């Protein structure tokens, strides 16, 4: 577990993440993630939700981990994974603060998060990474191993454990309230925003 800055200015992030790791990440930082990502999207969150509400154990220990919002396409024979880009994160906003409270340190997807989610990042020291939406073929190259760990019947929406190496992303929301989407738009807007 560490965050180090490489010679090219990109931060190398190794999972699991500590609070100190999260604190060292700033909105706009480019990162390369190595270690483990757990995939979960709409249907998996739907199953985790009653467990969280009842205080039951979850099928994965989220402490220090990263949840990647994706549902990969099937792997061709001989390939580790199919296309594996991010899905829209805001659909998971309802569930995210509770997972962060349980110790989840990062989520990764695309698109803006709600204010309660951003507040949870501040309160519990967590971060949101943006992966490039629609670049699923390129992103598949950074996945070394895939294993289904829960809810296999959900198909693409099952929870998978991905082992990744140098998976590229950018810090969208840091734990200090930073927001890349707002900053970026302000820097380039030329009217009516």
């Amino acid at each position: 577990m560490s965050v180090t800055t490489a010679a090219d200015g990109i931060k190398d992030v190794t999972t699991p993440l500590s609070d100190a790791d999260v604190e060292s990440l700033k909105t706009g930082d480019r990162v390369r993630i190595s270690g483990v990502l757990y995939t979960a999207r709409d249907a998996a969150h739907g199953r985790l939700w009653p467990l969280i509400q009842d205080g039951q154990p979850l099928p994965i220990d989220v402490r220090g981990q990263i949840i990647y919002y994706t549902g990969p396409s099937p792997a061709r024979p001989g390939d580790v994974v199919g296309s594996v880009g991010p899905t829209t994160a805001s659909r998971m906003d309802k569930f995210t603060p509770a997972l962060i409270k349980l110790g989840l340190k990062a989520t990764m997807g695309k698109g803006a998060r709600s204010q309660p989610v951003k507040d949870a990042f501040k309160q519990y020291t967590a971060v949101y990474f943006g992966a490039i939406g629609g670049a699923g073929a390129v992103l598949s190259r950074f996945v070394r191993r895939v294993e289904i760990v829960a809810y296999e019947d959900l198909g693409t929406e099952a929870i998978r454990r991905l082992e990744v190496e140098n998976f590229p992303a950018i810090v969208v929301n840091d734990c200090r309230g930073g927001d890349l989407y707002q900053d970026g738009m302000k820097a380039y807007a030329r009217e009516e925003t």
Partner: protein
Amino acid sequence: MRDVHVSAIVDAVKKLCIDANLELEPDMLRAFDRALTTERSTAGKQVLQILKDNAEMARTRRIPYCQDTGFVVCFVELGQDVHVTGGALYNAINEGVRLGYTEGYLRASIVRSPFDRVNTGDNTPAVIHVDVVPGAALRLQIMAKGGGCENRSKYTMLTPAAGIEGVKDFIIDCVKTAGPDACPPLILGVGVGGTFEKAALLSKKALFREVGSANSDPTLDALEKELLARANRLGIGPQGYGGDTTSLGIHVLTYPCHITSLPVAVTIECHAHRHKEATL
């Protein structure tokens, strides 16, 4: 009458589904190249370059451009002198989708009911729109429509008093609210006029025009260019990281409408704009 056997339709749809997901159309690649010459943002340029690389990797390594391989929307122009033989047209299209998605290693993204949400496992059924037209040809246009951008599509019923300025403001507002969520740079299909459902249908149909091409109606062409320039001044940029390339094209189709109405529908399409067609 000209006979077209359903097996030809199955084969064509299967190939269109696979090709659409693995081979981004040249109009999109050209649009990325044009954007790279105007984009000021470094992050935006990096994203556009990665999207080009992604298209190349999808084509050469046969991995879908995006893991969301879409809901198949199929527009059929059925010549009135065509006789479909050997089975039902709709079944043939769905069989083509089933084969394309299972044999092509494409993701099954369709649930059988909006309420119980059980995946159908083979990406069927498609959404099929059939127009009967003169002639003896059968034209199949398919789009693998991504869900994230579709979720940001919008509809409104303006009053005639709102006029064209009201229409423009609504379209720009759609781009703003789609923001980074819908995977910009976006393509917008816009339907203005007709009825509630007609406007929505036009907004999908509008997406099939080649990106970067001119609208054949000069007035609409000027409108599209004005809207595109406005959208690209919003600053959202590729992936919402900030930049000048928020949209690569805005396509408008219109239809006559009732004296009381000004319906406007906007289909939001992401940069994974996967469209293919074949004529049998």
